[in-house]
């Protein structure tokens, strides 16, 4: 079918924005899954999660600048981000297990301040770009324009998400994770090594955030030490809408948020963006805290 001439027809514009939304949403899903893994397991929010995303993006950037090929930089950034998550567990969660339940959350906020300022010292406060060509392959899929990087992002995201999902459902270790999140004491009595489960969960959540960081920087062009703040919050919104503790919910929540954000920018104005997203967040917390797919918490 030959491409439509300008101006865009309404359905075509809508579909194109939908594609944009799905790609953006995939990165949000990765962040949301990381949040929900930790929240489901320890019943606590890691506010520095967004900063792990930021750190993964910068790590990937530094590696790519050294000439390391992109796929390798991605994997190394993933590992680095995972390790950072473990460090956060060690400093902000483990020592505070007996303290007030909110202490870990506050400690991660402080750790986030530390991360942002250290990143500013290392990489500067101005936006950085990945060294790569701006020419990418574009495909005409019917009425919409899709780039090769869109496909890459969605593919990697789906692959990782399905992988985690299957891992948690089918493997023995995955069962141990689910048991620990249900009732840690019982799980421990049944022989589960709680600490190992916790470390692994944190590593995974960090690794996912790191991947999201690199993908975001690759496609969406620029990063600063302060992007983690917003991306983390949006991931939290996606997690709540999808359903806390629910992996599939986080996936779908992320996609929904991506689409909503893009549609808002297309049909309204970017100023309303955050008020719509946080308004939705508030409505869900108050009226439907279990989200779309979660189970009702007692």
């Amino acid at each position, binding site marked *: 079918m030959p491409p439509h001439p*300008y*101006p*865009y027809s309404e359905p075509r*514009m809508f579909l*194109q*924005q939908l*594609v*944009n*939304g799905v*790609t*953006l949403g995939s990165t949000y899903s990765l962040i949301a899954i990381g949040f929900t893994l930790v929240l489901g397991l320890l019943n606590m929010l890691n506010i520095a999660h967004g900063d792990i995303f930021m750190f993964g993006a910068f790590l990937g950037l530094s590696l790519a600048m050294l000439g390391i090929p992109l796929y390798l930089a991605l994997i190394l950034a993933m590992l680095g981000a995972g390790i950072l998550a473990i460090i956060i567990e060690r400093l902000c969660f483990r020592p505070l297990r007996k303290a007030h339940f909110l202490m870990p959350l506050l400690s991660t906020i402080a750790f986030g301040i530390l991360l942002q*300022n250290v990143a*500013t010292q290392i990489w*500067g*406060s*101005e*936006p950085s*770009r990945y060294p790569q060509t*701006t020419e*990418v392959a*574009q495909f005409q899929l019917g009425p919409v*324009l899709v*780039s090769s990087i869109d496909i890459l992002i969605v593919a990697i995201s789906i692959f990782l998400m399905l992988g985690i999902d299957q891992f948690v459902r089918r493997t023995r270790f995955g069962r141990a994770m689910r048991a620990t999140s249900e009732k840690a004491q019982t799980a421990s009595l049944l022989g589960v090594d709680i600490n190992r489960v916790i470390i692994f969960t944190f590593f995974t959540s960090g690794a996912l955030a790191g991947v999201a960081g690199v993908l*975001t920087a690759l*496609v*969406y*062009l*620029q*990063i*600063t030490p*302060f*992007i983690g703040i917003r991306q983390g919050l949006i991931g939290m919104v996606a997690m709540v809408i999808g359903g806390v503790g629910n992996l599939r919910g986080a996936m779908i929540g992320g996609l929904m948020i991506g689409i909503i954000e*893009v*549609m808002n*920018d*297309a049909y309204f*104005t*970017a*100023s309303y*963006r955050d008020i719509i997203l946080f308004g939705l967040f508030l409505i869900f917390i108050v009226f439907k805290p279990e989200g779309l797919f979660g189970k009702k918490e007692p």
Partner: protein
Amino acid sequence: MRRRKSITITLFVFVLAYVLAIHPVPVAQALEGPEIKIGVAVCITGHGANVGKREAIGAQAAVDVINAQGGVNGVPLKLYIEDTASNPQEAVNAVRKLAGDHKVLGIVGPHYSSVGETTFPLGNQLRIIQIAVASSKPGLAAANRPYAFRNTLTEDKIAGAVVREFKKRYGIQKVAIITDIKDAVSRSVGTKVLPPAFKGQGIEVMTGDKPVTYQTNDTQFRAQITKLKAMNPDGVGMGALGPDALNIITEARRQGMKQPFMSTAPIMEGEVPELGGKAVLGTFSGTIWHLSMVTPASKKFVEAYKNRAKTMYTSKYTETPDYYPVNAYDAVFMIVEGIKAMCVSNSAGDLQMDRDKLMYYMAALRDFNGVASRGFNCVGDGVKDVHVFEIKGGHWVPIKK
């Protein structure tokens, strides 16, 4: 014989008196030592860390040049730098520390209009001048007479010049505008500055009063470009910062748009020509100073800056100057000129009078000969020349007028 001598002496005295009256012998003013203190309040941490450090280096470079020439009438300058952390509360403390503890004569800074909004009224309360190095929010200095000055050029003056050249080159009849709605300067450029600048040149603004919008440092611009493309304008005006502009144009080329883009000074930072490649060729902008300028004053500044950057806040983000440190450099020279012209005494008992003298000097400064500064206008905003540039061959190249 004696009569001739007395006539000669009398003539001599008269001639001498005449000469002295027409050309008064300059009396070196007595400046008290041991040092002349100038304050700098910029962001060393936070969002503006990179640019704040450059501004501090620019100010210090000026001090280096002046002290190398013996200071001011033999008294050296000393710079006191306090961090504003890109944040109004910290900035207020920084200004208080400079004025109250360090007892500086005047302050170079701040950076950011949102910081100036709180430090300018404070400066009026404390009666000390601030010469901001970056702040384009319209009306900010005007609302804070008499001690607030901004050594920056408001974007409307730059926009007018750029739009004129843009229309001339590309024959623009209708234009669409895309703007940042979070960053106050970009938002103001996109919504308040560009539309009248275009209309003033008889260009239709297709987006009316509803420009295409995004937020600073957004990670993608798909939706926005799709919208712009659908309107099919002759050219696109942007209210944007450099890195965002780069991404906007790149995405536009990706989606097949061929129209030229233009904006004002902020997009000349962020290495748009170097990183944008083919996509950004032919983009127009304008500014008050650029590294490619070759006047003697400009070269002296660059040399002094690069020297100082080797030992102060050394990093790859500070080694090359942009126009912000120029504003700081010129501001220091302005203060020094003020000290000389107003006979500032620099003695502790005269601190308030000295500060007030500098304020009067700045308020009347119209013909300053700085690297990129001419003085201030009646509302305290900077007066500078505008240079229009286009992107050609990976660089910003000035347009011959």
